[in-house]
């Protein structure tokens, strides 16, 4: 069995993002880390590997420049078997459409993939589109918002998962191969182990270019993207206000508070 985890490198969630007048986004000298949502996907892949006595192979891939190595190293230090960076200058400025194309081509090249795991979205762009697009391109079963893998039947080639939806939980069964978008709560990601850290710093991380995976140049990068950035600007600063409710008794204060919350349609 072969599991692939797709990861992305993002600025640390504690980073202070700034946007200058020209629309350049900066997060200062904040470190680049593995997208925090992806840690759930990595953990789930390792849990599956452990459940099947270490038999499944877990490959982590990331499309990105040299900085993407941080995400790969983190995943290897957690327990993934190998890491591959997919990058080409032609992949610059890819939107989700172009990104999913490149990732799907890389997964196709591996040939024997049964499961592809993603975090629910990336904390920088927050689109959550890539897992669905990759599933569509590969013809794999798309299973998003997965909070639990109920059953993985390797011989029967099916997977049963619980999805966390706004309306409640939904249990679905789908044929393998499948793409899974994980959500927070599916597990508690482990810290990298010291042995894992040593492995991660000594591992080789091959780079697959567009030519290596058969990418058509006009389908990747800005050329292959449907989204155009017209203007980038910081959102207006939200003005907060506080009001102290004065009343003779706590009950009276609570009643006034409830009225106000209802008037504002908060409750």
């Amino acid at each position, binding site marked *: 069995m072969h599991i692939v985890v797709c990861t992305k490198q993002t600025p640390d969630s504690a980073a202070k993002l700034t946007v200058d007048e020209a629309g350049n986004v900066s997060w200062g000298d904040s470190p680049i*880390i593995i997208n925090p949502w992806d840690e759930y996907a990595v953990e789930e892949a390792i849990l599956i590997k452990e459940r099947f006595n270490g038999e499944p192979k877990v490959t982590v891939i990331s499309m990105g420049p040299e900085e993407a190595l941080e995400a790969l*190293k*983190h995943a290897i*230090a957690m327990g993934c078997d190998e890491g591959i960076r997919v990058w080409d200058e032609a992949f610059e400025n890819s939107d989700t459409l172009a990104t999913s194309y490149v990732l799907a081509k890389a997964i196709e090249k591996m040939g024997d993939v049964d499961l592809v795991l993603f975090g629910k979205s990336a904390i920088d762009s927050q689109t959550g589109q890539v897992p669905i697009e990759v599933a569509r391109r590969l013809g794999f079963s798309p299973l998003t918002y997965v909070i639990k893998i109920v059953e993985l039947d390797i011989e029967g080639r099916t997977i049963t998962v619980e999805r966390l939806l706004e309306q409640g939980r939904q249990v679905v069964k789908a044929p393998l191969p499948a793409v899974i978008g994980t959500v927070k709560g599916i597990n508690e990601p482990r*810290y*990298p*182990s*010291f*042995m894992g*850290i*040593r492995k*991660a*710093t000594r591992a080789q991380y091959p780079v697959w270019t567009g030519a290596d995976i058969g990418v058509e140049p006009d389908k990747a990068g800005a050329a292959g993207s449907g989204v155009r950035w017209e203007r980038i600007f910081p959102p207006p600063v939200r003005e907060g206000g506080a009001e102290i409710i004065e009343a003779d008794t706590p009950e009276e204060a609570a009643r006034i508070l409830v009225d106000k919350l209802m008037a504002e349609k908060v409750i």
Partner: protein
Amino acid sequence: MDFALTEEHKMVVRMVRDFAEKEVAPYIKEYDRAHKPFIKAMERMGELGILGICIPVRYGGQGMDYISLGLACEELERVDSSLRVVLSVHVALNSLGLLQWGTEEQKQRFLVPQAKGERFAAYALTEPGAGSDAAALTTTARREGDVYILNGEKMWISLATIAHNFLVFAVTDPQAKPRHRGITAFIVERDMKGVTTGDIHGKLGVRAGSTGWIAMEDVEVPVENRLGEEGEGFKIAMSCLDNGRYTIGAGATGLIRACLEASVKYALERKTFGKEIGQHQLVQQMIAHMKRDYEIARLLYLRAGWLKNQGIRNTWQTSLSKWFATEASFAAASNAVQIHGAYGYSDEYDVERYLRNSKGACIYEGTSQIHEIIQAQYVLGYREDRPLRCELPAYDPEEWQREA
């Protein structure tokens, strides 16, 4: 010369920082207020391998180097001193002492479970009447056949009521001249008959840590639990302090960083006289001093760690690191409270805890005054290092990481 941390070091820093921020920072105030040791955090440090970070893999450890130990201490004490104290006593004062001086049998019996975090370890040198004057200890060990009979009391012992194994120093030859030649080291186990322990209450700081006393009444300690030779105890005690002080210097560096981070955050938020207080020059001065001291303290402990990796004796460098960093952390914490004004005086903010926690390290493992004397004595030529029968082994990645 290379000042860069390796990729491994950077990943160790990130891992320990994540652990401390996620699993300790949200709860530490509660434990500190309740004067309650954070046992769960200790157990997690064991599970994660932090309690055996720089011990060779074949002795149950993680096979990282001595610099990793220092970096872990910096990250832990940035969140709370009590966590770093655990590394100081369990790893540096006890486990590294076993690695340096223990027989193979002792390493298998005691070091392996300690490095795996299955057993906690402490270091018992100080007594009610013997602190800075360590050779004045009165605990006795009388040999009778294959056992030693230990009697006496140890005081101010970190993890006294939690540890399973204690490295105890006792007088085996009361006639020895000078006195320190009559001291011997023993591994005393909690479940030995005659061992009782208790906690000390009313401490100024490190309230989420365990500090207590150990009383020994006719405790029979088998000969195979003697660490080193008879009369070698003082040398062992001092060599252990070379490692303990290293972790304190590194930890105090983390405490300075915590003060600096808290002060910068507050100075950018709080406004007085129509501007944020970071714009006031006297606030800037306090922050500049913290930054200066953080950078100096970090260089001092990393140099000591590098010397340990090389297998080079580092007594004065470690003493300097400990002396400078602990005094600087006390000053930084005092200034951090000052910057926070009245808020800093309440436990709503962390800085009052930093101030209370910083003072202890200026006292234990050699007061600042003892370290001043050590520095002067080296420079004046009154003191020199003599080779030890067993030196702390230099870090060798292959040797540290081989399985058996």
